[in-house]
């Protein structure tokens, strides 16, 4: 494995571009946190790395487009490199995105697989060729089938799109919600829970970026 370039440094992880067995790859490392006791720190970093890798593998198996895991050890995950443009940069460029319909289906599939992403912001959605959509950064993802957790995914998406592109947001969100609700399990309860969360007024803008 060869590490070449730092792509992102989040609160918990660093993401590099590099090579693995001669092919381009993305390497995600959870570095040591000196503010935590070494035993606690090691335990957390290894446990979280394993959970993230296991969720990525499960999501992939269930047909959710996400980076393929090439290798995992200790605090490191090596993944396939996903090429394309993030939804964030499409929105910032003022274009109206074309893959949002597909994104709704992809998130529905993720939820049907018993997984919630927990950081569904436009930075973590990549559009490839055509309408191909890929979800990235599963650092906060969890196994969950709870209506509340699913609704938080949709709410985080709604809030972060609105924050990034207020004028394009209504159309993006309504396209996303309608294609999600056509395919997602318990879509009606999830959508009505999103309503509740909005009313609670709890501020949950895009969660921390963890690379």
């Amino acid at each position: 494995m060869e590490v070449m370039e730092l792509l992102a440094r989040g609160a918990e992880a660093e993401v590099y571009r590099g090579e693995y067995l001669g092919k381009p790859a993305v390497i995600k490392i959870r570095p040591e946190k000196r503010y935590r006791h070494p035993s606690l720190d090691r335990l957390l970093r290894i446990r979280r790395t394993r959970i993230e890798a296991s969720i990525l593998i499960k999501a992939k198996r269930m047909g959710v487009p996400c980076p393929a895991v090439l290798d995992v050890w200790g605090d490191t995950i090596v993944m396939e490199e996903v090429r394309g443009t993030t939804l964030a940069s499409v929105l910032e460029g003022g274009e109206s995105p074309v893959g949002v319909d597909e994104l709704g289906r992809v998130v529905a599939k993720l939820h049907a697989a018993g997984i919630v992403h927990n950081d569904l912001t436009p930075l973590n959605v990549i559009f490839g060729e055509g309408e191909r959509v890929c979800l990235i950064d599963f650092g906060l993802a969890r196994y969950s089938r709870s209506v509340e957790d699913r609704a938080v995914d949709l709410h985080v998406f709604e809030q972060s799109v609105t924050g990034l592109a207020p004028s394009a947001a209504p159309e993006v969100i309504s396209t996303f919600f309608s294609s999600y609700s056509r395919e997602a399990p318990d879509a009606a309860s999830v959508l009505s829970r999103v309503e509740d969360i909005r009313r609670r007024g709890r501020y949950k803008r895009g969660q921390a970026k963890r690379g």
Partner: protein
Amino acid sequence: MISLGIESTAHTAGVGIVDSDGRIMANVSSAIRSDLGGFRPGEAAEHHSRVIPDLVREALREAGLTFGEVDLVAFSRGPGMGQPLQVGALAARALALRGGKPLVGVNHPIAHIEIGRLATGADDPLVVYVAGGNTQILVEEGGRVRVLGETLDIGLGNAQEKLGRKLGLGFPAGPKLDSIEGEWVDLPYTVKGMDMAFSGLVTEAERRIRQGVRPEDVAWSFVEVAFSMLVEVTERALAATGRGEVLIVGGVGASPRLREKMEIMCEERGAELRVTPPELCRDNGAMVAWAGILALAQFGETEVGESRVLPDWRVDELEWRFLRKDELRALLEGRSRRG
């Protein structure tokens, strides 16, 4: 403008006097204590009603003022325990009516944050508010203080007190727990996104003690885990918001161990750490007096007839802006011109 503030949300009754330049002229308090740990709201209310009149006199003496020279009376309206809150509100209403002075009810977390900004010079920080009943990561944005992350069950301070009671440390147990040295014991660490939970940690710590693990090891590890969780969510919020400044406020904020951990994290992230001095971290009257001036400048007085206490008043339920000193001055001048 001179403001007298009364604090009574929980165990501490406090009276402070602050002027509109942010000069703290007096800050006196009396807290209910208990050797067994814990207290009942009724006991706190009784304690506060006994001490507040004397605290008011003492504060005026310390400031070298007569009550006639005070321009407004502020009180903590909530969130907090109903009975103690009512005692402070009652005293504030009586003083305001007797002196014909404006009454201003203030939000308790806002008062903590604003005294921290005043004392440390923090401008637009990410705020870590860590106290008995509250543990929240906050920012001001769009005329409101927003909650980015918080405890999903009990406040970090209350978690410390629960374990402290089990260990017979008396109340408050937090500072004593902080200074216990021990060895590492594995305890549950619960961070979900930018939220934390402490109640499972207390339960497991108590179970370990019952199992015969050395209490000092459990106590040391408990503090280690609880503070690490708080530092981790703070780091996440820093990364998410891109702020460059962290301000610690609230009673647990006086802890040297918390400060040390936050310092390491902030240094690694290149963020500035500002910690409110201990005497202004714990519940006190000066913070209420200062927030009273800021509230009066922005929103005017609280009518006595509408000044009921609000025990569940969340910090994100009210409008609030972090004012610069010149903005405050302009607002106050505008008010006095309107008469």
